[in-house]
């Protein structure tokens, strides 16, 4: 016989498995610190590459002025300037991504917990139905 409640529960669980596969993977493969640090490293590489692109574009943009004034340029000062700008943007970007990934992990964990609760409930319906099933047989 079809058990409507069980089907509802199983459907919800199946939807979670399909939709929130990402969540599932996050919680199952990483501890929180690992997850955050893995993504921070990714964010660090992304920002560094972006910064390099930015610097190259800036130099090409100002190429004519730079070539004209190449003897008067203070390269040390310029290097320090670039480093400071880089560090400021880096710390900003990493802070944002830290907050983001922290939040993302927490929600994933929460969803995963409710999924586990659903599994437990499903298990209980199995136990119940097997008991009642036995009862029917005895009758």
């Amino acid at each position, binding site marked *: 016989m079809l058990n409507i409640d069980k089907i509802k529960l199983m459907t919800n669980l199946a939807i979670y498995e399909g939709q929130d596969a990402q969540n599932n993977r996050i919680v199952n493969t990483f501890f929180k610190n690992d997850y955050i640090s893995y993504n921070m490293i*990714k964010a660090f590489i992304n920002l560094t590459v972006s910064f390099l692109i930015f610097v190259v574009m800036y130099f090409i943009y100002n190429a004519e002025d730079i070539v004209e004034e190449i003897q008067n340029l203070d390269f040390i000062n310029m290097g320090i300037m670039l480093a400071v700008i880089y560090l400021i943007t880096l710390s900003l970007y990493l802070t944002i991504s830290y907050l983001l990934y922290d939040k993302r992990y927490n929600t994933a964990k929460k969803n995963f917990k409710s999924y586990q609760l659903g599994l437990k409930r499903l298990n209980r319906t199995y136990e119940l139905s097997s008991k009642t099933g036995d009862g029917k047989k005895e009758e």
Partner: protein
Amino acid sequence: MVMNLLVFKERLKSFYAKYEIYLTPLGKFLLAAASFLLINQMIGYKDILKNPLVVIGLSILCAFIPGSAIVFMAALYLLIHLYTISLEITIIAAALMLLMFLLYYGIKPGNSIILILTPIAFAFKVPYVIPLCMGLTGSISAIIPVSFGIIMYYLLSYVKQNLNQLASPGSVLEISRYSQIIDSIIKNKMILLLILAFSITTIAVYILRRLKIDYAWSIAICIGAIVEISILLIGDFVFAVSIPMGEFLFGMLASILIAFIIQFFVFAVDYTRTEYTQFEDDEYYYYVKAVPKIVVTTPQVTVRRFTSKKKKNKG
């Protein structure tokens, strides 16, 4: 009147729930076709890509791939066209796209459709609808792809206007051509003004529609539109850019109208989509189609119950 609209909305919901599997690819097809045609119309200089068969074929392909892949296809399509015009503009466009993908989509994947929607809205002269819709549906972070969409659109219109200068090799030094193109973005006050106006409007609409008051969404659209109009008009004076008034007013009115239509018909269609799942237990295989329940009818039902209870009490 209102009742009829509600009934129509219900029908639309059930229609969407029923045919969602066909409607979503259709929407993607139209979106992809619109973006390819827009690119062709603005900077179509690679003849093979302008072939209608190629456009249709690519759009059909786009109907079945995820949204972010459509954006990738459109970006590639754009870069090939640009490459036929000049190398400098291709490099700048590619660098901009790369920056966008590394910095924004690196940490927040999804929603890349906004990148395409913004230029398309510009082409249809209703760009003002974008911040209203983003505030209603999305989150504040949508500001970034929208701003990027604005920059891309203006880069393309710059290429379209200065085609001869950019295309003829040797007329200008290459390096100076780079600077010229970048200048066209940095020194264009219109881009700055639009980004400013769109960002503030998005934030305003987003905050207002989350308020726990009646008609929060409609209020959000109205006040958002007022904010947008005032910033653009003030900016028109402060930055000394000339916004063509007729087009602006018409576009603004059309945008508000579109925002209301979208709010009423599309957002009400429960976006938690129909789900198809399959699973099994010891006795059966289940193929389940789970359709989200329609919520609007519930208040009417409770009203009826209330009156019937009253009658019972009296009796």
